[in-house]
Every structure is written in structure tokens, then in C-alpha cells.
């Protein structure tokens, strides 16, 4: 098996294992969210709580339907001897999570250091993570986006940068 086939085989295995449909978990989280919204709204004046209560109530009812549907779906799949695919298989989800974390670090740098300094660090780091091999692409892209942001937002639109 070559590297790609090994990787595919490993990824094929990742979905297996679940017995409960992920809609059940999502529905329960949304119900909790809706209840928290209603509890919080009790402190609002009557006119201000009408609409949030309506939105929370709607969300709880719809989430209940989602939970029931998810339970039925899970039961049907279990009956057929199958398993439910994982919602976030680590093999792929980790790349999305790293992208998210790197963006978070970038925003923190923008806030506490400087937008342009942060951009000059973030763009090459992100490109290296995304396996961009050509150095000139990394250098040109970083220089290009930094200049563009300065020209458009600072020079032309006079926006005060963080």
C-alpha cells in the first residue's frame, strides 16, 4: 500500500463506532440553549421578553423534533447493523481546528501587536501549514496582501488600524 492508500484506509475506519445520531446531541444542546434563553428572559420587562421567548420556544420545539428524529434514525441504523459516522473525525477536523486556532492567534496579535506585523507573521505561517512549497509565492503573497491592505484601508479609506 502506498502512502495515499494507507491514509484512505485509516480515514475509512474513523467514521465507525457511533451508536447515537449526532442530531440528538445537537438537539439537546439547542434545547439547553433555548431553556437558558427563557430563564434569562424572565428578568426582562414584558414587552422586551415577548420576542426572545417566542424565538426560544420555537427553538425548543424544533429541537425536540430533531432529537426524536435522531433517536429514530439511530435505532433504524442500529437495527440494520450499521454504525453512525462521526461528525468530526479527528483526521480531517484537526486541520479545520488548526486553521481556526491560527486565525485566533492572528487576531490576538492584531489586537495586541500591530495589524501589519501580525499579517507578515500569519500569512507565511498559514501558507507553510497549508504546504505551500514555493518560497517566492509565500513572499509575494505576503507582500501583496500587506501592501493591498495598507493602500486600500489606510491610504485610501483612512481607516485607523488596530
Amino acid at each position, binding site marked *: 500500500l502506498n502512502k*495515499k492508500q494507507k491514509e484512505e484506509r485509516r*480515514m475509512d475506519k474513523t*467514521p465507525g463506532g457511533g451508536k447515537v*445520531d*449526532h*442530531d440528538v446531541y*445537537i438537539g439537546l444542546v*439547542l434545547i439547553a*440553549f433555548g431553556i437558558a*434563553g427563557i430563564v*434569562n*428572559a424572565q428578568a*426582562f420587562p414584558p*414587552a*422586551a421578553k*415577548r*420576542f*426572545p421567548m*417566542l*424565538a426560544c420556544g*420555537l*427553538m425548543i420545539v*424544533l*429541537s425536540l423534533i*430533531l432529537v426524536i428524529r435522531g433517536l*429514530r*434514525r439511530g435505532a433504524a441504523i442500529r437495527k440494520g447493523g450499521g454504525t*453512525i*459516522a*462521526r*461528525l468530526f*473525525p479527528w483526521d480531517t*477536523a484537526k*486541520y*479545520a481546528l*488548526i*486553521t*481556526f486556532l491560527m*486565525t485566533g492567534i*492572528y*487576531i490576538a496579535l*492584531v*489586537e495586541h501587536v500591530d*495589524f501589519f506585523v501580525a499579517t507578515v507573521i*500569519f500569512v507565511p505561517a*498559514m*501558507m507553510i501549514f*497549508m*504546504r505551500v512549497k514555493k518560497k517566492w*509565492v509565500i513572499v509575494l*503573497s505576503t507582500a501583496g*496582501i500587506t501592501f493591498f*491592505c495598507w493602500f*486600500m*484601508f489606510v491610504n485610501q*479609506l*483612512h*481607516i*485607523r488600524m*488596530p
Partner: protein
Amino acid sequence: MPEIIANLFTVDVLIALILGVFVGMIIGILPGLGATMAIALMIPMTYGWDPTASLVLLCSIYTTATFGGSMSAILLCTPGTPSSAATAQDGYELTKQGRGLEAMGISTVSSVFGGVVGGVALLLIAPPLAQFALRFSSPEYFFIALFGLTIIGSLAGNDPLKGFLSGALGLLFCCVGMDGNTAYVRYAFGNIRLYSGIAMVPMMIGLFSVSQMMMQAERLVKAGAIEKGQVLNDSTALGTKFLPTFKEFIHLLPLMIRASVLGLLIGILPGAGGDIGSWVGYNEAKRTAKDRSKFGHGALEGVCGSEAANNAVCGGAYIPLLTLGIPGSGAAAVLMGGLTLHGLAPGSTLFTKNANIVYPIIIGYILANLLMAVVGVFACRKVVKVAAIPMNVITPLVLVLAVIGAYAINISMFDVWVMLAFGLLGYIMRKADFPTAPCVLAMILGPMAEKGLHASLQMALKQNIVLFFAGRPLCVVFFLATVASIVIPLVLNRRDRKTKEGPESGAYTAVDD
């Protein structure tokens, strides 16, 4: 008439026209910078200008920024303006299928068509239409918002339940901040930055762009492209076809007309801008399509409907602005500042005493839409090359633009964090097959619905609210339209399922992530 033509074809006005088209398009393409901001930024530039040239510039920016927003929506799934969010639904899918250039061609033609319809309507039927809009009061707005929310059903794809849940989440998000009716602060948890609510643009950038980039990172891994540094999309993969053929144009013409008229009517209604108009246009395209299964997976009609409507909204928004002094959208409200700056008072005198100024502005607006077609044809071919850049190069650049776009709208780092949080939420929603568009739509329409409901209850006093609504013919019309909008798709879907799939099609046949 000769005076109007002489006022229009001056060097100043023509320069303003060209400048407005270019500035509007560039600002529209940039995520986070919408027409409202562009107009606000350009108003100080026009202090010393001739009123006609100034207002031609500002009006041109409004329509071209709306069109420009569609380019980034189609190519990067990053709506440049809120009114392009509906375009991203099918536009980006078309780009992924290698038909990005074609989508941009349809967007150009539809935007120009919608813009010209809006301009001609502004020229011909402004006063009578503005009078009709005066009949709309809070109860009618409540039902308009309710009618708008029924669009969620058609945005939800194969799972209306998840679509409505996404909408409910949006309704809850729009409750955050100071209540417009009672000034009571809700769900801010002591955070002063949440007093004004969750900012729409950062939320949209997060839900659409950041989540999309996170999905891209996953997709690149799955395709093994990151390991190889592979170019996933090249310029040839975007296709070479740009403008629709005459036959295709004729096929799309009825939709363009319907979407433009709807956009025009929405533009006339104060408070309902291009963001609502584009969804209504999109829904109209889906409602009347023969094959509705294509929507959300790359339907040209989806791009056509939303783009024709959101550009027609611009013309519609000027009608109550110029005739009654009531801005039909946020951008029109800023434009009103431009009018007063140059000593022009909205109202009937504008069309009599200042006819030599206002008519050149309206004709200039129509010309801006036509010029937009010329610029669009050249710009699209250049801008489309963005999609030739490998995804692993473009992802960091889009994230930088997302950050600066979210920041620039209110000069607030808090908004950038909001964008990131919604990026994560959008990613989870996408993974769990929850459509993100209904959440955005509900956030747009929620405040209108709440304000309308609150005012209706106050207006009804001790009268039964149902009887109060029943006593207002326009409310009854919108209520029937709302019911029809919910029931008809359900009946049609049921009929389609029965005829196409047969009785054996189960709901729980497959589960995948």
C-alpha cells in the same frame, strides 16, 4: 429637457460617473465594505463639488457596490456586501464546478437589468409608488417580515427542520443587545459592546467565509492536495463561457423581470434593503424553477434572481427618499445626508424647483448601470483570475481580508472576535448539515418582525390582535401570501416525492458526515 441634458453631459458629471462605478465596484468586492460605508466615505470628498456630479457619484457607488459584492460571493464564497449573501449560495457552487465565469456573466447581466429597471421606475413612477408605500404601517411590516421568513423553507435544502432551526437561532441572535422598542438591554451579559447587538457583517463573514475556509482546509487534506501542494482550481476550470447566449437570456428574462419588480417594491419599503431583496429574488427563482433540486448546488437562476433583485432595490430605495424624504435602505439614509449637504430637500419641490438637478441624477444613475455592464465585462475576466490561485494560497489571504473586513465596518476588534466565533459556529453547522443562510435571513428580518409586532400590539390597544390584523386588507393579503408560501412548497414537494421516488423512499436511509 435641453437644460437637463446640458447638466448631465458635463465633464464633472461624466468623471463622477466613471469614478463612482470604479470605486463602488472595488469597495463592493472587498468583504465587509458595503455601499453604505462607501457612500459615507465619499460624501466628504464631494463638499466642493457641483450637486449633480456629487449625487451622480454617490448614486453610482450604491448600485455598483451591490454588483461588486457578487464577485467575491461567487469566487470566494465571501459576500462583499450583505446583499450578495444569497448570490453566494449558488454562485460559489458554480465556481467549484468550473463555471465561475459563467456565474459572473449571469450576475453582470442580471445586475445591469435590475439596476436599469430600478432606474427607469425611479424616473417614471416614483411619485405614485411612493404614495402607495405610505399605506404600509407597522402591522403590514410585521407580515412582510413573516412572509420573508417563510423563504427559509426554500433555503433549507433537503431538510426544512434544520433550516427552520437555523432560522430560530438567527431570531435569538437578533435579540442580543438593546431592544428597539423598550431600550432594555437583552442577553448582553454586562458586555457593553453587545449593547448595540451582534453586528451583521462580521457575523456574515464568519458564517460564510471563515467557516468555508475551515472546510477548505479539510477538503484539501481529503484530496491530498496539501501534501502535494496541488492546484485545485485553475483558470481553465472556471470555464471560458462568460455572457449567456441569446437563448439563455430569453429563458432567464421572465425571472429577471419578476425579481427586478420584487426588488423594486422591496426597495420602496423603508427599512427593507438589498439584503432582503436578494433573498426574495432568490426565493422567486427557486419557487418558479422547473428543477428546484439544483438550488444550493449551482443554479444559474439563483444567481440571476438574487442579483436582479438586489440591484433593483437600489433604484426602489431612491423613490421614497427623493419623493418623501424616507430612505428605503441604510445606504439611501446615508445618501440623504449627501442630498441635504448640497442643499436639496427631498419632496415634491425636488421634482419641480430642482428638476434640472434631480433628473440628471436619475438619468446618471441609469447610465451608471449601463457603464457597470461595460466595466463588469472587463473586470469579471480579470477578477476571475483570483480563482486560478491555488486554494492553499488563497485561504490565508481570504482570512486576512475577513479580519480586516470585520474590523473596518465599525473599527472594532470585538467584531473581529465575533466573526471568529461565528466562523466556528458556521463550521459546526456545515458539518451537521445545518444551512447557514436561514440564520442570516432571520437576523435580517427578526428586528423588523419584532418592531412590527410590538407596534401592532400597541396600535390594537384593547382590541383582539387577530381582529385588528383582519381589519387591515394589506395584512390579510400578506398573511395569505405567507400561508401559501409555506403550504404550496410542502404540497409540491410531497407530490414530487410521490411521483419521482415512489413509496419506498425512506427518510432514514443514509447517514454521513
